[in-house]
């Protein structure tokens, strides 16, 4: 990239920052169908810029889940017990069998057929080769960072990053990274073993291009405002981000996902819907969120049937907090026999409660206000006598050692 070193942003240059931010924010919320022609051209250009000898076969998938499952299944071909029906003559037959098995598994998991184009795209397993992503990665992501560091004075870099990077709403994609890892837990029992087997092969190395929205926004800023000329691979990556969902690049195959068909956010641009799925894809994959935290569908769809005790006993504390919010802390405490053992004047030290839980008996909980303004309930030992002591215990400290200078 050719950009003059800039000491500070001028007024005209500052005006563009919010415009650019809004442009990428809209893109992050986009639920339109991919522009496949534009995306495939961008992918071909990225491969050419990375000096790869072949234009890849582009495989379109309806969702990141379909993408991950099908790809993982292919990569696992041959060596897994659940592929025992694979023909012995080689990887091609194994991969075909894997595709068919995956199709059935995905169908079971999603409850409806996955779009046929995915399967049409992966039926030629001879074109699938593993592990050339590092070549693309080396060509793109670190280079972007290096260009930014070397070409721009520190102050301007910080100003741009602070204004754009931190505010581009890639919460959607960040959340998807997390949920892609545990969505198999909701699969039907008969499919669980097989899906766990292939989960080891899921792509952890790349979820592009939306993971790089902040970088793209900065690049676009440099091109438009600082009159910089960006290299062809950056331009291609920008075009891919604008035209499609996630992509996972391999030497001869590039897997690309459609965007979600439905996306709902709260006022802070966190994934959220109080009466249904917050994210939905064309293949039927739906995800439920409560103000950014992913939750099981039943918590939203059948919230009236949730047992209040779950808000004190659910294993994941973030989801436990969400349960408290969905059910309502007042309802939780009203429906369980609860006694206040100790209440600190400081809400971040909290209240020590004792209650009788159905089937679990007497237990003590620390109800505490987090520095982010959210309320949590933590299980603590029955011999904790004060809220401060309970706080100290949660960090493995004695009461006298718990003197915080700051909590964030």
């Amino acid at each position, binding site marked *: 990239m050719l950009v003059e070193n800039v000491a500070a942003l001028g007024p005209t240059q500052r005006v563009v920052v919010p415009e650019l931010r809004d442009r990428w924010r809209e893109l992050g919320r986009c639920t339109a169908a991919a522009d496949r022609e534009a995306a495939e051209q961008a992918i071909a250009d990225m491969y050419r810029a990375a000096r790869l000898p072949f234009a890849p076969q582009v495989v379109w998938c309806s969702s990141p889940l379909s993408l991950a499952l099908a790809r993982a299944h292919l990569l696992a071909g041959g060596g897994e017990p659940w592929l025992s029906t694979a023909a012995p003559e080689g990887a091609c037959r194994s991969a075909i069998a894997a595709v068919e098995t995956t199709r059935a598994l995905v169908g079971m998991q999603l409850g409806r057929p996955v779009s046929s184009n995915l399967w049409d795209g992966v039926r030629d397993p001879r074109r699938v080769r593993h592990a050339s992503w590092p070549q693309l990665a080396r060509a793109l992501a670190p280079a972007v960072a290096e260009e930014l560091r070397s070409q721009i004075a520190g102050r301007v870099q910080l100003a741009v*990053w602070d204004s754009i990077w931190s505010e581009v709403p890639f919460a959607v994609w960040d959340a998807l*990274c997390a949920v892609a890892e545990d969505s198999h837990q909701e699969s039907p029992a008969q499919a669980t073993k097989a899906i766990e087997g292939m989960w080891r092969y899921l792509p952890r190395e790349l979820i592009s291009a939306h993971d790089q929205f902040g970088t793209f926004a900065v690049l676009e800023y440099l091109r438009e405002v600082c009159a910089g000329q960006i290299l062809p691979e950056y331009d291609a990556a920008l075009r891919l981000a604008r035209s499609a969902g996630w992509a996972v690049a391999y030497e001869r195959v590039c897997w690309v996902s459609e965007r979600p068909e439905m996306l709902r956010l709260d006022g*802070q641009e966190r994934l959220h819907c109080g009466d249904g799925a917050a994210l939905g894809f064309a293949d039927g994959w739906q995800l439920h969120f409560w*103000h950014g935290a*992913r939750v099981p569908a039943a918590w939203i769809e059948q919230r009236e049937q949730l047992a209040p005790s779950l808000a004190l006993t659910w*294993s994941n*504390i973030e989801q436990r907090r969400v349960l408290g919010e969905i059910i309502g802390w007042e309802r939780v405490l009203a429906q369980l026999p609860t006694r206040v053992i100790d209440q600190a004047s400081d809400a971040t030290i909290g209240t020590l409660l004792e209650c009788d839980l159905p089937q679990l008996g007497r237990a*003590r909980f620390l109800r505490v206000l987090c520095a982010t303004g959210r309320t949590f309930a933590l299980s603590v030992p029955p011999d904790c006598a004060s809220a401060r002591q309970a706080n100290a215990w949660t960090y493995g400290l004695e009461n006298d050692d718990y003197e915080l*200078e700051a909590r964030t």
Partner: protein
Amino acid sequence: MKAIRKVGAQGDVLFRRVDAIPSEYQPATQPGPSGAPPRSAGAVQHLIVAHSESGHHHVIASPDVTLYTGADPFVCFLRLEGADADVEHLRPYDTHETLRLLGQDGGPTCYEVRRQREYAPERDPRMGAFRRVED
């Protein structure tokens, strides 16, 4: 941003300044204390101080910080060579404010890092009747 010289917490992670790092703790090569791969947010490679199951790690971007790990999964240590180190929370929503660990003049500074836990009576008491707070 808030700064501490002795004791402070960022969400479910507590930092406490100590005089020295116990000998049974050794420098860890990334990946982080739980074996999670380092995560890159944008251009910067982060040292993962506390791994989160949901990817919302607590990280330090400074190259002048070394992580020491041992057998206790609830405790690790940091050695700061510079004047300070900023602990960031990688979550796009409900983000914990950055916490600055201040160093001492004229030498490295050590901090103990303690993960928050909660009571879990269903676990084998010989293993400790508690579990790590998962977020």
